């Protein structure tokens, strides 16, 4: 087992000493493709910014609408409860006054 482990270590040590392949000069084709892509990204930047802004505005508006609906619902339900309590009290008074 040790000899085999040693074989892997020796192989990796030797491989790590292999000279790195030179990157060489950037090819014109690659440079042209990358620069073309960068240009389209740079030009589309303001439009993308507007889209991002629009998306955020829509999210804010949606959140406000949901919050408003929730508040409205809670207000209505609390009013309904108050109304019920008043009706019970009124009925009790009527029963007390007119037996």
């Amino acid at each position, binding site marked *: 087992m040790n*000899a*085999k*482990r*040693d*074989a*892997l270590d*020796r*192989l*990796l*040590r*030797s*491989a*790590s*000493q*292999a*000279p*790195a*392949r030179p*990157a*060489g000069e*950037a*090819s014109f*084709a*690659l*440079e042209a*493709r*990358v*620069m073309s*892509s*960068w*240009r389209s*990204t*740079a030009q589309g*930047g303001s439009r993308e910014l507007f889209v991002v802004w629009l998306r955020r505005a829509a999210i804010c508006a949606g959140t406000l609408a949901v919050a408003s609906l929730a508040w409205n619902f809670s207000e209505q339900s609390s009013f309904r409860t108050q109304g019920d309590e008043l009706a019970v009290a009124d009925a009790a008074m009527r029963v007390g006054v007119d037996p």
Partner: protein
Amino acid sequence: MADTGFDMAACLDAVRRGDEEAARQLFHHLHPLVFKVVRSHLPKRMSDEDLAQTVFMKVFANLDQYSGRAPFEHWVSRIAVNTCIKALRAEMVRPEVRWADLSEDESDALDWLASTDAELQPDQSAGSRDLVERLLGALKPKDRLVIELMSLEGRSIEEVGQITGWNHAVIKVRAFRARAKLRKHLERLMKEKKP
């Protein structure tokens, strides 16, 4: 990146402002780094230029997300490594390494390992590098990456953590398991040779 005459911060500002000449300079400055990473982790059926182009496009498209906390080269390396892992994952086939497929240099290195306990000779390093790359092709992308970064490039756990975003425990466990798998493939290849 030992290029001391290159002002990275100024260049990045200029690129963000839309300066094309600065973008070109940045491309040339990063070219050796990106190619080094891409060639170390290149899937079999993909050209290094295609993968490098994908990396550069991601770098330029996400330039605004670079916070400046880590050196820019680390950020680029991380993008390059993640792009390579994604490409390697897409390459579903991980072929078994067979003795008959080895080149002369690779089988020479394997012969040496099987026959002696001595270190490989300096002129065998290219063959052993090719053999390791062939064996790594049979591993999963993350296992392959951790072996390449730690065993071949000699990076520390901290550096691997910076490049990959993995924590130290994950790196140690992954390195241990990846070496075990690599050893298994090497042993099988050596056994195949022996009879």
